[in-house]
């Protein structure tokens, strides 16, 4: 059977049992903003079925509607027939790429730049230098005039690339005296290139609670942004590479601090990309809060603060991690935990989604920012670097004084002073 025929059959299977009840609509953050049937999961499922049967061409409008999905998985959670519209949509994007080819820019990034293990961090560093030189993070920088040319709003919040990536900062083995556990840390691109402080906090925490942390230096992107764009083959390259690198390690757990990375390692390599991932590998993949909760991490230093928590879609609906970060945060003495309304609704970030659809991303984010503001918390905590980026932008746009922190950074702050010997992070 040809590849495209096989895919068409899969697309039909993924959409066949839709009974068009519409239960996916009220939970879809994109439909809630746009209100058009075609921008709802039910509509997309119908369109995908049309494309699979040959009723529809893969037109520009088709691509636009299929593109306007953040992959937040809310529809899949709600679907009474057990469909996963988000998975159908990713497969539909794959169909577009198989038929139309990968656009040149994406081809260069996914197939070349991101595979260059030395050049990729180096170009991020170069980018970071350029960003600092042009002061592009400053709202008044003339360099911002370049943003609309790249399809981004001129007032977009721009996080700086780190001048030294996380993987260049830390040793491959981060030992502790009398280790109780041995864990590997899968860093992910955001923590590696944009927010190395998240990675440092994760290592600090794991060390603090008695885990020796192995950080393979040849790990790469998990593949999420690549298969999210429909390039399954490109995504599989990274999956296979990382699987090889991490399978060799003799560790108790493979820890992530990003919902998307964690979900991808644990589930999507196998279920979405069809890669032969051993069950014992998947079972080892844990969000760092799952790991900390499982070892009964406690004994935090007092932090007087009011915090609220935003569930990353892939952490909550993907990995099922909801209670652990909340319980860990609430265990910090002096920290008041306030639940926000619609805590597990998408923030609109979605990784590259916010670059492809900046306006829509902002509209979705505005609602999240309102809910966060409603808690009057000092700090909005979340477990995914992509959400950190989005929340910082949307909260700032609403003039909010709330700060946004990754769960790891908040927890690390609450044990950091107990570590007399300066950690690898210093």
């Amino acid at each position: 059977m040809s590849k495209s025929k096989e895919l068409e059959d899969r697309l039909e299977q993924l959409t066949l049992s839709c009974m068009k009840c519409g239960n996916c609509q009220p939970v879809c953050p994109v439909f809630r903003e746009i209100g058009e049937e075609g921008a709802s999961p039910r509509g997309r499922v119908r369109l995908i079925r049309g494309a699979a049967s040959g009723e529809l061409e893969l037109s520009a409008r088709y691509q636009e509607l299929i593109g306007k999905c953040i992959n937040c998985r809310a529809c899949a959670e709600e679907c009474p027939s057990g469909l996963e519209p988000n998975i159908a949509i990713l497969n539909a994007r794959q169909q577009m790429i198989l038929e139309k080819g990968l656009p040149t820019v994406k081809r260069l990034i996914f197939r070349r730049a991101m595979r260059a293990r030395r050049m990729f961090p180096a170009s991020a560093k170069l980018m970071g230098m350029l960003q600092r030189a042009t002061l592009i993070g400053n709202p008044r920088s003339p360099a911002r005039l370049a943003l609309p040319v790249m399809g981004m709003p001129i007032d977009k919040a721009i996080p700086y690339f780190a001048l030294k990536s996380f993987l260049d900062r830390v040793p491959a083995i981060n030992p502790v005296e009398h280790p109780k556990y041995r864990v590997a840390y899968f860093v992910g691109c955001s923590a590696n290139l944009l927010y190395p402080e998240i990675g440092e906090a994760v290592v600090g925490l794991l060390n603090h609670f008695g885990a020796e942390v192995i950080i393979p230096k040849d790990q790469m992107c998990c593949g999420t942004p690549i298969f999210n764009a429909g390039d399954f083959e490109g995504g599989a390259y990274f999956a296979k590479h990382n699987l090889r690198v991490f399978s060799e390690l003799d560790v108790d757990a493979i820890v992530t601090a990003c919902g998307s990375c964690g979900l991808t390692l644990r589930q999507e390599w196998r279920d979405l990309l069809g890669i032969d991932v051993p069950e014992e590998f998947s079972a080892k993949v844990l969000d760092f809060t799952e790991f900390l909760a499982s070892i009964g991490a406690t004994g935090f230093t007092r932090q007087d603060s009011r915090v609220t928590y935003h569930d990353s879609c892939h952490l909550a609906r993907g990995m099922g991690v909801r209670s652990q970060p909340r319980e860990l945060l609430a265990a910090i003495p002096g920290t008041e935990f306030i639940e926000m309304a619609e805590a597990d609704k998408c923030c609109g970030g979605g990784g590259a989604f916010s670059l492809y659809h900046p306006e829509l991303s902002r509209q979705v984010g505005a609602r999240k920012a309102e809910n966060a503001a409603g808690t009057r918390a000092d700090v909005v905590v979340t477990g995914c670097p992509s959400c950190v980026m989005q929340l910082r932008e949307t909260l700032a746009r609403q003039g909010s004084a709330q700060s946004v922190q990754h769960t790891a950074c908040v927890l690390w702050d609450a044990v950091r002073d107990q570590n007399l010997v300066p950690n690898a992070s210093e």
Partner: protein
Amino acid sequence: MEAKLLSRLQEIVGAEYVLTAKEDLICYGYDAQHVEHIPEAVVRPADAEQVARLVLFANEESIPLTPRGAGTGLSGGSVAVQGGVVLDLGRMNRILYIDRENLLATVEPGVVTADLHSAVEAVGLMYPPDPASMNVSTIGGNVAENAGGLRAIKYGVTKDYLMALEGVTPTGEFFKAGAATMKSVSGYDLARLMCGSEGTLGIFTKIVVKLIPLPKDRRAVLASFNTLADASRAVSGIISAGIMPATLEIMDNVTIRAVEDFKKLGLPIDAGALLLLEVDGATAQVEEEVAEAISVIQAHGASNVQAASDAEERDRIWEGRRVSLAALTRVRPTTVLEDATVPRSRLAEMASEIEAIAARYSLTIGTFGHAGDGNLHPTILTDERNEEEMARVQQAVKDIFDAALRLGGTVSGEHGIGFSKADFLPLEMGPGAMGMMRAIKAALDPKNILNPGKVFEQE
């Protein structure tokens, strides 16, 4: 559609709110029944003024206009069976006012039913109609279809809560119907006429509904029976004992197995049927009615009966009912869901008829539904890609309607006639009533602009 006409539509609602791409039109070609008709354009007006201008335009150009809420209907009411323009009222979705002194809510038609529920429950009030699609469906659509729901046995259906409305006539004039007073006998009851008119007599732009105080307590009971007929007789027993549960639902063995396969709730898969009921009201009254209901159920030969001990158990019981249709849809690719309704005393006979029809046409039919109000949902599990089987399905549907009518029932309890039941309506109504309805339609909509092809069978 011609460019000249499209540009007129764009002038009225703004270019952004006129959809014409094939992809968009396909998405407005369906509802929750399985026959599709693709419109020529979709417009998404912002207010009553735009709605009126669109209706005037449609009259001038003789273009069919099909109003649509959320497209969750089960009889094709919002599907543009004769093409033309679909009028999506989803943008008009504000809750305008909750009047706690008069127990009224004023809303725009695009308000999602469940959103109205949450808004009024937040102030201790209740809007009782609860169609199963309420998380998605709109109040406008509910009024147009006179939607029912689980609580109909005690609280009635949408028409019992519709007080007044504003709208646009099929010829483009504004009108008001009903009154915001508890009593009003002024003129013909146009609000009642509009309720259940399926978008054929007017488009609603503002709706006033009645609210009631939220009951303080509620309790669920689950009972299993050896046969569907036994369970149906227990329903009659409960009603004639003067017990008035808020909901009284039934599930047959096919449904129980599908649900258990789906959710593993611990339902008894060998039971011929389950009854699920919930009593609400003041706590003491709830206790009393639960005890009475249990003794009536036992007297009717239930093999097991239990009251939910806590909210968690209650939710588990209702989860089973809530996912019934979904569970059935997992069994086969296509489901054909009917809503023929009989007098409550004839429920057992109707249940047996459905079982006989399933056997006659070698079809799998899962039956669940609102036993308390005589409204069963026989659900035929099939595959729309299999023409031969679909032909048997059509026969079975016809036999179900015939059986319901023979038992003194109605072809549609709550889903409406739309186009999917239009051929069967005359069997129930007879020529006299059909003639009156056609005369009303012709008088109000001489050019047959609003939702043509619905309610009346096509020549």
